[in-house]
């Protein structure tokens, strides 16, 4: 039996389902929210509902966007030859901030991780494959995180794309090993993009 009254426990449970939030943190955040003045709590609730209602995923690249296509997909000045594959929309933002990259993106919405039940089918990989020909993609730059799951995803993509005659490159090292792309500083990330290398499929 849960130690808290229904609505409190519901809140704790919901918060506990968020990434990176364990039971202890969920409890702390829940009680913090309960102490907030009602308008503040209301604002948070509205922000969540609004974002859910108005923001969707780009139908082409799965970046977050407000319409059917995101700003990048809709921009004719972007170089269609280059496609940068990232795990999450926040990684796209990180790469975009470097100003180094003029191509388009594809957001996988995760990385291969059997422990979490995420295999290739759970990712936007089929959607990636159907973009290659129509958009005339010459090179796919794999910008997954330099951790175990990101590396495995990169290798999977290399094996998948190599036979299709598409050049596949991976960010050059220089990125902190075991780190997350979104935390890399712009300089490091910019240099890594310049120094990208062919990803070998073996």
């Amino acid at each position, binding site marked *: 039996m849960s130690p808290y009254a229904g609505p409190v426990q519901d809140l704790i449970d919901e918060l506990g389902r968020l990434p990176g939030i364990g039971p202890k943190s969920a409890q702390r955040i829940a009680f913090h929210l309960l102490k907030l003045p009602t308008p503040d709590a209301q604002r948070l609730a509205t922000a969540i509902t609004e974002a859910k209602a108005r923001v969707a995923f780009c139908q082409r690249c799965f970046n977050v966007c407000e319409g059917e296509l995101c700003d990048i997909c809709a921009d004719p000045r972007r170089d269609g030859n280059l496609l940068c594959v990232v795990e999450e929309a926040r990684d796209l933002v990180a790469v975009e901030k470097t100003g180094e990259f003029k191509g388009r993106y594809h957001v996988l919405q995760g990385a291969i991780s059997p422990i979490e039940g995420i*295999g290739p089918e759970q990712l936007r990989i089929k959607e990636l494959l159907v973009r290659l020909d129509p958009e005339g993609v010459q090179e796919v730059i794999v910008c997954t995180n330099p951790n175990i799951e990101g590396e495995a995803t990169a*290798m999977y993509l290399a*094996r998948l794309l190599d036979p299709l005659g598409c050049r596949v490159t991976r960010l050059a090292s220089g990125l902190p090993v075991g780190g997350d792309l979104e935390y890399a500083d712009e300089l490091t990330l910019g240099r890594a993009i310049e120094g990208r290398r062919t990803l070998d499929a073996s």
Partner: protein
Amino acid sequence: MRLQRLWLTDFRNFASAELELDEGLTVVIGRNGQGKTNLLEAVAYLAELGSFRGVSTDDLVRAGMPSAVVRAEGERDGRSLLVEAEINRVGRNRVMVNRQRLQRSRDLLGAMRVSVFAPDDLAVVKGGPGLRRDYLDATLVSARPRLDELRLALEKILRQRNALLRQSGGRLSDDVAVTLDVWDARLAETGEKLAAARAALVERLAPAVAAAYERLAEVPSEVSVRYEPWWRQEGLAAALVVGRDEDLRRGVTGVGPHRDDLELAIGGMPARSQASQGEQRTLALALRLAAHEVVTDEAGSAPVLLLDDVFSELDPARQAALVRWLPEGQTLLTTAGDLPAGIAPGRVLTVEAGTLRPGGPGGGDGVDGGAEPADADGGP
């Protein structure tokens, strides 16, 4: 590195304790259950942020108290070092080095090093292969802290691969096959690196173990230490291919560094099953002393050597041999009974029910500079 002073607050049965350590040998005397092992555990905690007794950090906090603090002052490479650890029952544990809070615990690796010998070490010789792998990997990480990344990566890859094997339900669909290929490649790469590092370590460890064993046993002995996983002949990638069907059936990875053994033999016979208890104890201690020697060499300075209840493990001749051959550097040794002849600790402390006082259990508190305790009483 050298430890000069140590403070404990609400650590195990120590409400509050402060002690100074000799730059050579410090001996802690106390009857059973008084806090000898607890004291060594506190020192080791600062190096490893965990208990060498393998318990959760909650158990380290004194009963009824919310948190424990262990603080040590010392020097390393000629610079002063202050390590402070706070162990909390609720919330995160914290570590500060020279008053800087560490963001990740692995940043501590190498700031302070210890080599721990405890009576439980006998299990390294007598127990299953997992304990010998742990011994090997802990020595590896102690000698080269960066290798911890390799060990952690291997663990993660194995967890992912095993999860995939279980999800496959024993069948190799095309999808599973491609994904499995990817994990196999990652596993092979990481596993080969770890095994190569282990093999290089064992090459240095083996002669050191044999030499330490002979010094303790005082008779010529043919001790061999070998790390020769069969899969290294063909390579892990090939071994994984051969084992794939079996792995799919069983849902676990059957080959790799996580299944290897470190083979120990005395006079050509496996030490685990055929050596006498005395030989096994001596070998366990020799393994620890050899690891200490190799780490000292590799790191450029000696870890603090922590010897828990070591005399109870050895006959009088071997006790005397150990005393004669104690490595240079700082040693903290505990004992419940008499001190062997010839021992010359720089400092002697007595522990009783979580209270420390200078000197041996019989006498006053004057023993402070090289003198032997006159009458360490007969122990329990």
